[in-house]
């Protein structure tokens, strides 16, 4: 139990990572692949944040020394151990926004694929594409003949 006590956040990261990765490649519906992609990115953000979390630490906004109201650097507590790690949080702001941008692009492509093939299921799309392929080939043969 102690081992789980120390690492239980990383376990969540691993579960989400595997779910997201499996859904992204294994799922049949394109929208479900996008949901899998978001879960996969969220798992990595979770990994960074749990790396930067400290037991008993508060949010990384500098607190006033009790009683001091000045604005100089001396009137703020700047001991790093009582604040959470700001560096990993910056990186994850970027990762979230990148995730949304990629999601927007992926959903645009899903709509275009739906306009093109009338379906969102990967296996049906592949069948349509292979049929297009077959009916293209005979055209080439009589061109050569």
């Amino acid at each position, binding site marked *: 139990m102690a081992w789980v006590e120390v690492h239980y956040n990383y376990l969540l990261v691993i579960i989400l*990572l*595997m779910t997201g990765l499996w859904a992204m490649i294994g799922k049949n519906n394109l929208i479900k692949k996008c949901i899998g992609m978001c879960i996969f990115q969220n798992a990595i953000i979770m990994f960074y944040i749990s*790396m930067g979390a400290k037991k008993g630490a508060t949010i*990384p906004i500098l607190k006033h020394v009790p009683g001091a109201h000045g604005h100089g650097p001396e009137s703020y507590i700047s001991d790093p151990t009582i604040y959470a790690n700001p560096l990993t949080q910056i990186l994850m702001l970027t990762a979230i926004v990148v995730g949304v941008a990629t999601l927007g692009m992926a959903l645009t492509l899903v709509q275009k694929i739906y*306009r093109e093939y009338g379906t969102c299921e990967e296996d049906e799309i592949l069948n349509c594409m292979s049929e297009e392929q077959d009916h293209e080939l005979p055209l080439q043969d009589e061109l050569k003949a």
Partner: protein
Amino acid sequence: MKALSLLLALFVGFLLIGVLDDLPAWGDAKSPANSYVSAYYLKNSMEQTHVPNVVTAVLADYRGFDTMFETGVVFVAVIGIMAILRRDPKEEDSETGDRPPHAPPEGFILGVATRFIVPFMQMFALYVIAHGHHSPGGGFQGGVILGASLILMAMTGELESALDRMREKWFIVLVAGGFLLYAGVGLGCMFFGGNFLDYSALAPLLGGDPKAAAIMARYHGMLWVEIGVAFTVMSSMFAIFAYLSSDGRMDRGL
């Protein structure tokens, strides 16, 4: 294909579980990640940039170049989606796949509620942008809330009414303008002799004794940069929603 993906997911999971013991225990303050670079930020951010919210200080100043390219990612997403989806409404729907019949919004209650909520959302968003130095928040969060207020108008009312307030030409100009403001502040620092995005080079603009002016220049440089980010993120979130919901025709949305 399904089995292969399961295999890959299991392999990645196995790789990660194998490494769990080697990682520092969760939540201890002495782990390398929490002690080397981030300790420097926590110790020095107040005297170097005069910003209590260390997250905003590192986001906009120490690693401001990352955030500039993050705004670039949002900008690219809008231009890319516009390039793929955009087509003029007159073009008949040649491809297969029907579009759902459009039900005009008849919700009177929704209309009144939206007209009541939207101003407060936008006021709160401006507060989030402006107060990013002292409280959680900043350019991204404020920009998304502004975008969400526009999306709320587009969803409850007609996309047309939202587009009347924010023509397509305007949100493309705003997307480019916000990113230009960000990169322009960076370029301005180069004209004043500093490196790219070195706000302390803007100290001569503020006057007064150079040391204090350099710190306050960083403080205000960050605020300008956050405003640029807010513009870009606001108009890009609304643009992506408008293109997605109207499938590129910008005529009628959700």
